[in-house]
């Protein structure tokens, strides 16, 4: 996409120099007027109808807790049970989701049986395997616990024995994810080699999916010439730690990190979110016009600046994932192609606004967000607009293209600035082999690849329909000059023929 813009940019660049002098332009960032917005092809912020609306906010008193929650950090959804790591109170709350407006407290887990140290110390994350075993990141006790569903101690995962790890480093597992075979993926403070992977029997099997190491070439040269002491003073090129991980329904781990700089994100050198396969490679699709890193306008506003800080991510069954921005208190939804579906939220004290959101979970298309300063869980449900978008995407995935097109049309009626709606209609038309109409929708929103697909088919059809005329035109183009040349030659021969010449003389 950048390629296209460069063309225009290069053309304008010569003029820019000149214009900056003539017309002092004022750089400004558009303030977001609406709660929900999206970013269009040009990177402009487009206001949008709300995609999610708050169904209810659950505080400690709403849940009927005697001891109020204290800096809770982890959320996990298991069936219709929502687990909350009440980190400050060394306990885990089990809540049952009755409806989108109602969560009821089932039990409070603060101890277990079968081990000497049978309490938690600052548990930061919990995960439950398919068999129902609990995995708890018991950060203060430097262990990952595995308990059965009746809270009996099964085993624990300790600091990995690896020569590359600092001997004195305290093991502080912070977030974890479990795959179907009960292998544990865990991230710990101070360990930046990627996720720590344990086999189900507790053996450490390696680090997977370290972030890309970025460095400046100039810095690299400087380091080459620096002395040992100078080098120690400099920043070292190390991978960044992940902030959170999430195991999706297919067994891929989504990992997010907030320790990224604006320059690295824009230069494509760092990723805020990665989708990690078994090999530890990033397979997240990034086909959107803009990167998958939340806000693209990072100017300061209301005391917040810099890139979005993704503190958690959750993935739906249709591969849409929602990232939680701790910096500006926003939710960013992306589809399987890495295109932004919606962005909403802000910092504040009202319902649907956050102070320090740290964890996100989903139930169907409903979303729960945990705020560690507010000590509250905010429940979101999709609005009519949001539901229609999901419906249109699901219908497309199921192959019901006509219905998908109709749903996208209704989305477009609700929000005419929604790029995905145009492209969605176009894709539905493309599948229905209505190429000419599809091309128009793609052209409006500059979707060059889909446009090319539609155009290729349209051109093929056109050539097939007009093959007679095309052949005729080509024949005429060749035969007419040929014939004219022939006639001229004959005429010339006649004019210069000896018999006539003799006759004239």
């Amino acid at each position, binding site marked *: 996409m950048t390629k*296209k813009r460069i063309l*225009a940019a290069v053309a*304008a660049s010569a003029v820019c120099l000149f214009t900056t002098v003539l017309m*002092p332009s004022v750089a400004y960032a558009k303030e977001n007027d609406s709660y929900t917005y999206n970013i269009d092809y*040009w990177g402009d912020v487009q206001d949008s109808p709300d995609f999610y609306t708050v169904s209810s906010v659950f505080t400690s008193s709403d849940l009927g807790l005697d001891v109020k929650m204290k800096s809770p950090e982890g959320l996990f959804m298991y069936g219709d049970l929502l687990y909350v790591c009440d980190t400050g109170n060394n306990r885990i709350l089990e809540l049952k989701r009755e409806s989108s407006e109602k969560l009821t407290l089932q039990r409070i887990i603060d101890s277990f049986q079968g081990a000497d140290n049978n309490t938690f110390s600052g548990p930061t994350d919990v995960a439950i395997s398919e068999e129902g075993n609990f995995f708890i990141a018991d950060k203060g006790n430097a262990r990952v616990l595995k308990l059965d569903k009746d809270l009996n101690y099964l085993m624990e995962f300790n600091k990995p024995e690896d020569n590359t790890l600092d001997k004195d480093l305290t093991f502080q597992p912070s977030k974890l994810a479990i795959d179907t075979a009960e292998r544990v993926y865990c991230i710990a403070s101070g360990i930046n080699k990627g996720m720590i992977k344990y086999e189900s029997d507790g053996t450490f099997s390696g680090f997977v999916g370290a972030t890309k190491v970025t460095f400046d070439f100039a810095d690299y040269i400087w380091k080459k010439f620096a002395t040992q002491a100078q080098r120690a003073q400099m920043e070292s090129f190390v991978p960044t730690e992940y902030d959170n991980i999430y195991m999706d329904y297919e067994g891929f781990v989504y990992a997010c990190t907030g320790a990224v700089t604006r320059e690295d994100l824009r230069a494509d050198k760092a990723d805020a979110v990665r989708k990690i396969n078994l090999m530890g490679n990033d397979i997240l699709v990034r086909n959107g016009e803009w990167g998958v890193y939340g806000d693209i306008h990072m100017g300061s506003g209301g005391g917040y600046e810099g890139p979005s800080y993704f503190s958690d991510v959750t993935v739906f069954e249709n591969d849409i994932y929602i990232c939680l921005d701790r910096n500006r208190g926003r939710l960013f939804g992306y589809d399987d192609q890495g295109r932004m579906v919606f962005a909403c939220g802000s910092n504040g004290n009202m319902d649907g606004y956050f102070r320090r959101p740290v964890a996100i979970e989903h139930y169907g298309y409903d979303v729960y967000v945990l705020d560690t300063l507010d000590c509250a869980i905010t429940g979101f449900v999709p609005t009519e607009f949001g539901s229609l978008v999901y419906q249109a995407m699901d219908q497309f995935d199921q192959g019901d293209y006509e219905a998908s097109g109709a749903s996208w049309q209704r989305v477009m009626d609700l929000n005419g600035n929604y790029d995905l709606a145009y492209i969605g209609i176009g894709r539905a038309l493309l599948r229905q082999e209505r190429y000419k109409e599809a091309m128009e929708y793609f052209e409006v929103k500059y979707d*060059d690849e889909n446009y090319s697909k539609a155009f290729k088919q349209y051109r093929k059809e056109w050539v097939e329909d007009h093959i007679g005329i095309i052949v005729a035109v080509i024949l005429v183009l060749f035969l007419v000059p040929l014939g004219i040349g022939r006639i001229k030659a004959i005429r010339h021969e006649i004019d210069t023929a000896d018999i006539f010449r003799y006759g004239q003389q």
Partner: protein
Amino acid sequence: MTEARTRKWNWAKYWDSLRFALYCMTHPLDGFWDLTHEKRGTMAAANTILIVTLIVRIMKLRYTSFLFLTVYWEELNIFLYLASIVFPLALWVVGNWGLTTLFDGKGRLGQVYMATCYGMTPYPVIQLPLMIISNFVTIEEGQFYSVLSVISLIYCALLIIAAMGQIHEFSGGKNLLFTVATLFAMLVMIFILMIFFSMISQGVMYFVSLAREFMFRI
């Protein structure tokens, strides 16, 4: 222009000199020598080529397929867009003439302008058909678009360099040296213009704020 004014307007001469631009495209050294020395070129033709170039440049914005060129219409200023050709051209012509005239360059200011305009011929000649074809290809087949587009620009640059060598009667090495020197001269001129404009605006701002202050006190 003087020739055209003193004599009666000569369509045949104009048409011939315009067609001569195509000859210059394919025979740069021979063509650009004849351009001034044999008086094959006319100012009218040079102006025409420049205008056609500008028109093609604007048409490209609208009629090139969006696969290759997307335009953010909200921020497009057509005059500034035209200036992206005219302004460097003016700098080039003045800079080149100013330098070469000090170092035995035979070309006059008008001739430098005329030869440069003739050198821009490949731009409309290549870009116009390219613009039309762009609407009939897909993105996968579009590679040739960018290649040809770049070729047209390089072609123009080579022609202009060749033209300067011929009209100033410079040898190859000297010609290249003065091409680089001219580019440098352009930078110097931009620099001076920038200083000039910022000084002027500061000067104006001084009186504006003076007037404002005065208004407050009344």
